[in-house]
């Protein structure tokens, strides 16, 4: 393997560009990400590329390496970011809301659900709307539409269409707020009680929409066995949800 040849290939450069685009919406961030990855690959006389021992496919290794550098770049960038002091003063719940809405681009409505699930905010929705006023006025470079709840509604609706063949997401999208919060708690608790293999299976298939056949490889099972296993896990979710009085409206 010739690292210089790899790094001069259009295919790899396009891949780096594509991965950075997938992670960042702002063009400035995408460009910085691209430079960071190229520098990372060149560093110490191509140390990272030279570390390849041929135990995996080269293309898979390169994908993993590029993604690792992009994840590190994002963490470095996020690590530098500070939550505005006006938000910090409001408490942990406000910091969580700021992170969710400004950095992760959830709507304020969605943020309310998440802080309720995590037990960070105990008040009503009306109280929440009153108390987030200072957060809405806080600066947020990453999300220019930060102040507008309505504009984020659009992305929530988009996600209903995107829920595709994910039965858990599909259910959650159909529930009203109170039942959604309850259902998400049940889903989290149920997942945590699964075996290690089942947890990663559910995370990859229903958390990140990976095909079962791809995930099956990761957990070292035939695809048919993984499908059967998944079916059993869905039954467990269903039983737990029904026991809590949650069913599809």
């Amino acid at each position, binding site marked *: 393997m010739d690292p210089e040849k790899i790094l001069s290939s259009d295919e790899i450069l396009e891949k780096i560009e594509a991965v950075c685009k997938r992670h960042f919406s702002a063009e400035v961030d995408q460009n910085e990400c691209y430079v960071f990855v190229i520098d990372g690959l060149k560093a110490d006389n191509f140390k990272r590329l030279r570390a390849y021992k041929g*135990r*995996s496919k080269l293309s898979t290794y390169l994908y*993993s390496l590029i993604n690792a550098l992009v*994840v590190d770049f994002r963490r470095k960038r996020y690590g530098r970011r500070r939550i505005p002091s006006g938000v910090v003063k409001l408490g942990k719940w406000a910091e969580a809301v700021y992170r969710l809405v400004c950095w992760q681009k959830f709507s304020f409505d969605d943020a309310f659900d998440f802080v309720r699930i995590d037990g960070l905010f105990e008040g009503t929705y009306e109280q929440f709307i009153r108390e987030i006023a200072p957060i809405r006025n806080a600066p947020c470079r990453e999300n220019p539409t930060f102040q507008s709840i309505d504009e984020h509604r659009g992305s929530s609706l988009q996600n209903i269409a995107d829920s595709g063949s994910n039965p858990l997401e599909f259910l959650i999208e159909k529930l009203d707020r109170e039942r959604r919060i309850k259902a998400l708690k049940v889903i989290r608790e149920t997942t945590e009680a699964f075996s290690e293999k089942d947890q990663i299976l*559910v995370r*990859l298939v229903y958390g990140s929409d990976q095909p079962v056949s*791809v995930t099956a*490889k*990761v957990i070292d099972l035939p695809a048919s066995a993984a499908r059967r296993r*998944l079916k059993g896990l869905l039954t467990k979710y269903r039983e737990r949800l029904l026991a809590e009085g949650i069913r599809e409206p």
Partner: protein
Amino acid sequence: MGRWINKIIKPTVAPEPEDHIAIEDLARLADGAVDKAENQHFIRHLNRCQRCYEILQETLKDLADEASVQTTSSPWWKTRTAYALAASIILVLLIGGQLVFNYWNQRPQVILATLNLDQQLKDILLVDDALRWEKGERVNRLVAALQQKGLQVKELNLVVLSKPYYQKKSLFGPKEALHIRIENKVAYLEVKEMNQ
């Protein structure tokens, strides 16, 4: 991506472990090339480490993209399957005349049935994505299931499924029916949603 579910079930153990999985090991895991003991160790780590989980998740996306590009890179009419299909059609037209004649003169018995798609039938459909099942354990299971449901089927040589069956997205339904047509020891299956 299921963003509610992704957010709620992704690994969140804090503090994150320091000893991350090596990049090449993550790549091997994505390739399905690790032994059992390693697999257990890596999966345990992935369930607790957001960084490694995220790298694996993104790598799998790239592999899926790569696979989809490979399957769509050449025009459909240039694929081997298309040539094979064209050749098959010509062959069928050339030698099929006699068979068509026989068919019209000795019409075989046809069984038509619509069954509720219960768990027993679903299990058989979900074994894999194959659309044609040759004689074997899966076909025998189907024959036994159909017999249990009162269908006069003694033997099947082939089962043809109209499209791969996947578990429906709704956790609580909808009801589905299995439409069956059996002719010349060949069963044609189609799953349809039942009207409520």
